[in-house]
């Protein structure tokens, strides 16, 4: 049968990997697979769900566009009798999807923040680059950073800017933040793209050795930067693992009526990539032992 895989935006390596891995896994298991993208638009997402129904898909692997806004679309697929497996992001309603496989953003953020403190030290001013506010993960990660960093009273957050997960915006916002706060010692970023933008800004200002940058996602570019010593660390989201797992659970559900896992919400712990283990990074978003 046809398995429809709906990701956010394959123009980003993270979601690209998510889609490709799911597709490869599905094909391995003998399904045909379509990868589509909603680019964060709930209407586009709903349209894609309709299309999946039209195409008589046997299962839908969905990276939801919006925790609240995607509920209706999922409901529609479920009403049409198609099992839905959510990956990467959650929706705020349980009992609809057969499974929600997400990386543990809170755990990852805490992990990252810890590594960040180690690299930066426990006193000084820092700024944060924030993802797209319409995306839950932006807030989850920010809160995760906050929880750790507030334990260090001498660390002062002097700025937080929305850079919408985007490298160019990360670059420009970081430059402005640096102008407003010339004495910052660290940048903590909600994802790798924004962090890479910040690194370019720091390079341009000649401050890369004074200001430490931490990322999130574990994208290949970021791992390169970690290897080069430009980025202190990145938090690897096990996207390759859970999107493959989602397809397997879908397969199992189709064949047996069970996903094989008890809980609907399944959290996958994030891993830290630093200079020490960066060489174990074998493929996009895959960290070997």
């Amino acid at each position, binding site marked *: 049968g046809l398995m429809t895989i709906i990701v956010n935006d*394959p123009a980003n390596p993270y979601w690209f990997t998510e889609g490709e891995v799911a597709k490869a896994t599905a094909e391995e298991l003998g399904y045909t697979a*379509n*990868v*589509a*993208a909603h680019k*964060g*638009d*709930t*209407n586009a997402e*709903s*349209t*894609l769900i*309709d*299309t999946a*129904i*039209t*195409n*008589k898909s046997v299962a839908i692997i969905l990276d939801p566009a*919006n*925790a*609240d*806004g*995607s*509920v*209706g*679309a999922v*409901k529609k697929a479920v009403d049409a009798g198609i099992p839905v497996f959510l990956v990467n992001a959650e929706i*705020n*309603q349980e009992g609809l999807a057969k499974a929600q496989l997400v990386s543990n953003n809170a755990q990852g953020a805490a992990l990252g923040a810890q590594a960040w403190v180690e690299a930066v030290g426990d006193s000084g001013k820092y700024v944060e680059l924030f993802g797209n*506010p*319409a995306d839950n993960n932006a807030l989850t990660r920010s809160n995760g950073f906050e929880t750790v960093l507030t334990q260090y009273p001498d660390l002062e957050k002097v700025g937080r800017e929305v850079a919408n997960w985007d490298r160019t915006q990360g670059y420009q916002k970081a430059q402005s933040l640096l102008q407003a706060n010339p004495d910052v010692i660290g940048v903590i970023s909600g994802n790798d793209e924004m962090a890479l933008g910040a690194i370019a800004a720091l390079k341009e200002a000649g401050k890369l050795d004074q200001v430490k940058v931490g990322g999130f996602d574990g994208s290949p570019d970021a791992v390169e930067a970690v290897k080069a010593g430009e980025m202190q660390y990145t938090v690897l989201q096990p996207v390759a693992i859970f999107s493959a797992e989602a397809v397997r659970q879908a397969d199992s559900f189709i064949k047996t009526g069970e996903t094989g896992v008890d809980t609907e919400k399944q959290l996958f712990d994030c891993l830290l990539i630093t200079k020490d283990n960066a060489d174990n990074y074998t493929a996009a978003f895959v960290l070997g032992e």
Partner: protein
Amino acid sequence: MRETKDMSDTIVARPDGRKRDFNIGRLLLEGRAFFALIAIIVVFSILSPNYLTIGNLLIMASHVAIYGILAIGMLLVILNGGIDLSVGSILALAGVAAGAMMQGIELQAMGVILYPPVWAVVVLTCVLGALVGAVNGVLVSIFKVPAFVATLGVMYVARGVALLMTNGLTYNNLSGRPELGNTGFDWIGFNRIAGVPISVIVLAVLAILGGLMLSRSSFGRWLYASGGNERAAELSGVPTRRVKITVYTLSGMLSAIAGLVLASQLTSAGPTAGMTYELTAIAAVVIGGAALTGGRGTMRGTMLGAFVIGFLSDGLVIIGVSSYWQTVFTGAVIVLAVLMNSLQYGRGGRKS
């Protein structure tokens, strides 16, 4: 540009010496969007067995509804010689406003929470859309701000307000509660009358009303006239300023309706909805044969244009084309469809 057009009306060379096969020729050519649509349907039907089914056609039509409703308003504005970039933002703002009302309006002074019934929510949302549209209209007609800029500004402001209202979050619970007497919002998005989704019926009704207005009412005549030559229209007694404010107001109201339809289809309303929909709506209008310089265009053409875009993009998804290729195809088809259109004007159009 005025002069450009004037001149071409009078001095343009037409070296073709074509025979006056007007009626047949014109009919065929006017149907270019129609042909594009047929071509799209045929191609995709061959490529996928699931494409040409009643069920899928209706589903696709309900997707078209959103763009289609926006395109109706856009057509009015474009006929007037303007453009409205704010439709997507108004759509989002309207959805969010409706969502907020469904959650209850808290009157702090009195310490009560009002739960307006669904009809009231719908009406209030439309009024809101109309008001925002009227702001566009006033900026354009009274303060003479170029339409592109006025509506660009309003696009940013309306989006910002929608984000501020919800703090970036999405309203999820629009079903209302029976005990509050405000259920029924999902009805538009979910129910069907005689098998046809309500959203499609809404589109059809609006398109028919709009079409009648354009072709039969004096307002329609005023609109075409003031889009063709505003000065001449005004000197002939057309209340051009009122016409202008009205079209932007209507466009705002239609955007709000589109927002309501979308929110009820999704049973949620978020502040980031409708981004870049203005481009889709404009594309629909232009594919449908309207001229961005104003004064030329029909409702039928615009609807065909909306269906061309909608049926194309859904078809690409159904046959499983990668999203990168979808981008390429969409661009190519838009240009192709309008290329045919231009050939029409280049030849048939006005003669000098």
